[in-house]
């Protein structure tokens, strides 16, 4: 069965790009969220194998959303998406339980490499 992923990003462009990458690699995108609050609700609904979480989002930040998800689902696997220059936020997220991260701009195979190994662990 295809692995399920939820994409969280405020930019539609980023979401569709990630969707394309995942679908090309045989993943099933079960949900897309455009802010942290939505991410928390949709996660509870779908409980996907993996979440990609943009780190900077309006309303609830990616970090807060991840922490909220993890407090209800400690096994959740969250991969942070960040841009260059957001290193300290990424590290905070890793300390808080993010499994890995990808840095924009990213290449398809890099993304798949990262999510595959997070799921394999």
């Amino acid at each position: 069965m295809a692995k399920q992923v939820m994409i969280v990003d405020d930019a539609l462009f980023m979401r569709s790009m990630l969707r394309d990458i995942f679908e090309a690699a045989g993943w099933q995108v079960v949900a897309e969220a455009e802010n942290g609050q939505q991410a928390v609700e949709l996660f509870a609904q779908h409980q996907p194998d993996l979440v990609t979480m943009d780190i900077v989002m309006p309303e609830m930040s990616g970090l807060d959303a991840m922490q909220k998800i993890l407090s209800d689902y400690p096994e959740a696997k969250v991969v942070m998406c960040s841009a260059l220059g957001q290193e300290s936020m990424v590290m905070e997220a890793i300390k808080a339980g993010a499994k890995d991260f990808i840095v924009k701009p990213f290449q398809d195979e890099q993304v798949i490499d990262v999510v595959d190994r997070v799921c394999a662990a």
Partner: protein
Amino acid sequence: MDIEKYRKMFLSEAGEHLEKMAEQLVAVEADPQNSDGIDALFREAHSIKGMAATMGYDATARVSHRLEDELQNCREQGEVDSEMIDRLLTGVDLLESLLEDISEGRAERSVDDFINGVMLVEELEPIPEEDSCDLAGEGVLVRLRLADSVAAPGPRLLVLLTRMAEFGTVLEAKPSEEQLLQGEISRILLVRLATEASQEEIRQRLQCYRELNAIEFPVAVLEKDQQRKVSRKSGTTVRVDTDLLDRFINLTGELLTNRYQLQSAAGERNWREMNEGLSQLARLVKNLHHQVLQVRMMPLESITGRLPRAVRDLCRSSGKEVEFSVEGASIELDRAILEELADPLTHMIRNAIDHGIEQTGSVQIKSWRERDQVLIQVADDGRGIDPEKVRKRAIERNLISPAQAQVMRDYDVLQLICQPGFSTAEQVTETSGRGVGMDVVKTSVEKLGGVLLIDSTPGEGTRISLKLPLSVAIIRVLMIECAGCLLGIPITRVLQTVEISPKEVQTSGKQLVISLHGELLPLLSLRKILRQPKGPASNLLSLVVTEVFGRKVGLVIDRLVGQQEVFVQPLPSPFDRLRGNSGGAILGDGRILFLIDLQSMLEKRRTKGS
């Protein structure tokens, strides 16, 4: 490949190539159309490229590749202009700095400027010292190097550090979590880890991180120093002749080149080259094995050196006068043999003085080589051993029957002294003259694959001869468990060990296979080969990847136990003829490990089946 082991050799070898390049450059500058010189430069650059690529030193490989390209152009043009000489010199300088980086354990410096053709005007400053090998203490040291291309090294190292914690306990890390969180930038993570996991497991589980340039297991500098101090006493290190080291470096260079050859032959699917490379490899490995055995050799002197002192002390306490001499102390033996021999030798000397020498006399150790054996004789000119007394005692102790005692030759009777139970602690000296602890001495000698013989003439003295092999069969084995048996496979026969889920097993015709590195690997069950009942189902299959009849197979075993150096004894005749067994070893805890020879085991099945 354990890169750390080869790093130094790579450095030395690459350094030589660089030196030659510098020499050739001078020659070519003087004579720009010197095509031999250009060819030589090209070859040197090519060698460095091959080695660096094999070792995963990307920047070094890129620079040498670029030099190679430019020298190719020069070849085509038939000359090297002065601008190009400058460019080549800059490249050689840069390579030198890169080797320095590698030697210091730093990440290689950026080479983009050079590759992009920008001339480096400013002096190449060495990157500040950040040597990372100073975490000393217990546990395993793991050093991870990020590739140049990794975008966010800080968070990347933090992820890796978190991952390392899954192997066990992170005792120490450099940079530490705090340092990383505070924004310290590094491309190298050094972790001291308390873990059950083997280096191979750690390596395998980190292999999915393509961001990593290298996964290394360095030895801490401090730890090495401590080991050196300890070794003075315990003899766990050996001093090695620099000539021998040079030979190692040369061999390693050849091996690296060979590996590169094989890699490219495999890439091109050129079977002829592949075969050539393999026979080359066979030759190199054999040579290497020979050299390694050479390193293990130490002179007999290393254990006889302390004897004169012991003799003097014994003389003083017994009031005897003994002249002691050692002949042939420079004869070399495997250090494992010498270690085992030290106590027995002291014991024989003590016996000679306590029970052989009456008031004054001489005790002599003589050693010489006879083909593949070393003979060591301990002789005294004391009272000797009376075979009649030995006969009597042996009968008393039920070692021989009176009838036997009558027909036995004196010489054979003397050997009885070494029988366990011939003498016991409570009746120490006079009856036998020599029996005390001789069974222990004989056992030690036999354990090493040697022979002990006693010769004595009453009133003239006693001579104990040891015949020893030059080197012992000490080999490193992979210990495995199968159907309750502890078995060993020589590590040289093991290509890889893998643990897989039974779900990964597929069928191909009648054969069970798994896919490993994109190859279908047939599976063989060791239990089935050994005609043992099937094992209980498990959610983890342990495999030893090895080669039989020139074909890679996965041997399914019950459990991987570990690796160990063992002293291999052949089974006594006629059991040494048992197919599929190549001897055994007694482990430190008294367990016996049998060495299996898979190929002959399967041959056995083949012939039986046919």
